[in-house]
């Protein structure tokens, strides 16, 4: 039971990232069908969310390699904080949707993923240390 809490948290956050990037946290509202860079940042977040969701599922349902999966999830979280704004430029005005809503929301969600993964890793390592 206790082992499942953190993977479940990661899974939920991942779903939020993936679904959010396309819906309520999406970078732009398309009025004229043109796509800017921020749109592709949103698409990248969709992919990243799916990736961490798979990690969450593996942690939930497959025994073994838990530490590695937690490390990978944390790394993906770091990538997620970098995609909107740093790796992919967003719109120029800070009041625009991509910078007012998507970027901070994604940063927050990814930081939570990192925290959950770090906590999971620490617990995993401590457990491993107790019974070598």
């Amino acid at each position, binding site marked *: 039971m206790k082992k499942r809490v953190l993977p479940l948290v990661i899974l939920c956050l991942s779903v939020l990232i993936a679904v959010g990037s396309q819906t309520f946290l999406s970078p732009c509202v*398309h009025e004229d069908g043109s*796509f800017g860079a921020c749109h592709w940042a949103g698409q990248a977040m969709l992919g990243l969310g799916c990736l961490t969701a798979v990690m969450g599922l593996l942690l939930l349902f497959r025994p073994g390699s838990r530490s590695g999966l937690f490390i990978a999830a944390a790394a993906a979280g770091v990538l997620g904080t970098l995609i909107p704004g740093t790796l992919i430029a967003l*719109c*120029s*005005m800070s*009041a*625009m949707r991509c910078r007012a*809503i998507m970027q*901070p929301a994604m940063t927050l969600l990814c*930081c939570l993923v990192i925290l959950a993964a770090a906590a999971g890793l620490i617990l995993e390592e401590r457990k491993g240390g107790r019974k070598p």
Partner: protein
Amino acid sequence: MSAAGLPFKNLTRKPGRTWALVLLTAFLSLSLFAGSVVVMSLQSGLRSLEARLGADIIVVPAAAKTKTDFQNILLQGTTGAFYMDAGLLDQIAAAEGVEKAAPQTFLATLKADCCSSRLQVIGIDQQADFTVQPWIAQSSSRELGPLEVAVGSDISAGVGDTLRIYRQSCPVVARLSPTGTGLDTAVYCSMETMKTLLEAAEEMGVSHKVTSDNAEEVISAVYVKVAEGASVDQVATSLMSHPRWKVAVVQTRSMITDVSDGLAGVASAVKVLIGAVWALSFVILLVVFALLTNERKREFAVLRLIGASRRSLRRLILTETGLVCLLGGCLGIAVGAAVIFLFTALIESALGLPYLTPDGGKIALVAVLSLLGTALMGALASARTAWHLSRVDTGSILREGN
């Protein structure tokens, strides 16, 4: 095991109860911290607006919506353009009671795609200007040259970047410090640059001519400083009622009053919210601690009989509460800080008021005060429990059921 060991152990062995208390105290510090920072940001936004307006009266063309448009440009960072004959400037400058008059000309850029929003370009007369110039001077020591622009802090372009405005390449030479107002989303240039841009816009079919007159040059607003001893109201009335000028006036004082009224509204809503959260939490904490009193009577009787003094029991409870408040307080502040700082732009646009986050020192102070407030609340709520428990009748409790 040490003095801190006992309360710590009690907390870790009852994780459910401890987390519930931590979450409750986190709400306390979150509401206090986030609420205070928002109100402080609004206050510094208002101060910054006052500083940036710096004029007594602003004269704009008398068309139906220009006054609202102008206020929205200043407060919310929307785009807009309206024009009047540049010749009016000299007449206004010469009017009675006017000490200084400085023109500004506005131009809104076109929206190219989803990612380039319309920019508000503001041309200033660098000799006459007394409102924007001092602000630009904070970031750049020299005047803006031909086609050079300074950008507000909400625009992501940096010094060295080039903005394309109506097919003209405009190098960014300064980034201005944030004001929390709509001015942060604008681009500033000299009047000469503005002329070039207006012509470029004309070529692309964007008209900026004053419809009725056949003016050669246009301006959008005139910032007026009223002479010492003259009445702002009277000057405003006389400018507005001039038979041929067809202008409207915005008195900055009334604009600031509007903003500060809005601020007062938000501030009182925040206060009510904080009050409600605190009152509710206090009641919950009191109930929780009262329940704990009963549950823990026996435990404290045991501690008493193995030699704990009343004082050390009181200290034990207060330490436990302190640890919970510290953890909850820090958690609440961390969550509050994350939300407030990440979503600044969203909060700003949702409130529709000048919003300028105060500097780090002030925020750290608010954080410490929020933590202290939370700890005080915890201490108050547990004080009764501490008192009761330290006074348990050891013998009778331990012999119950004999």
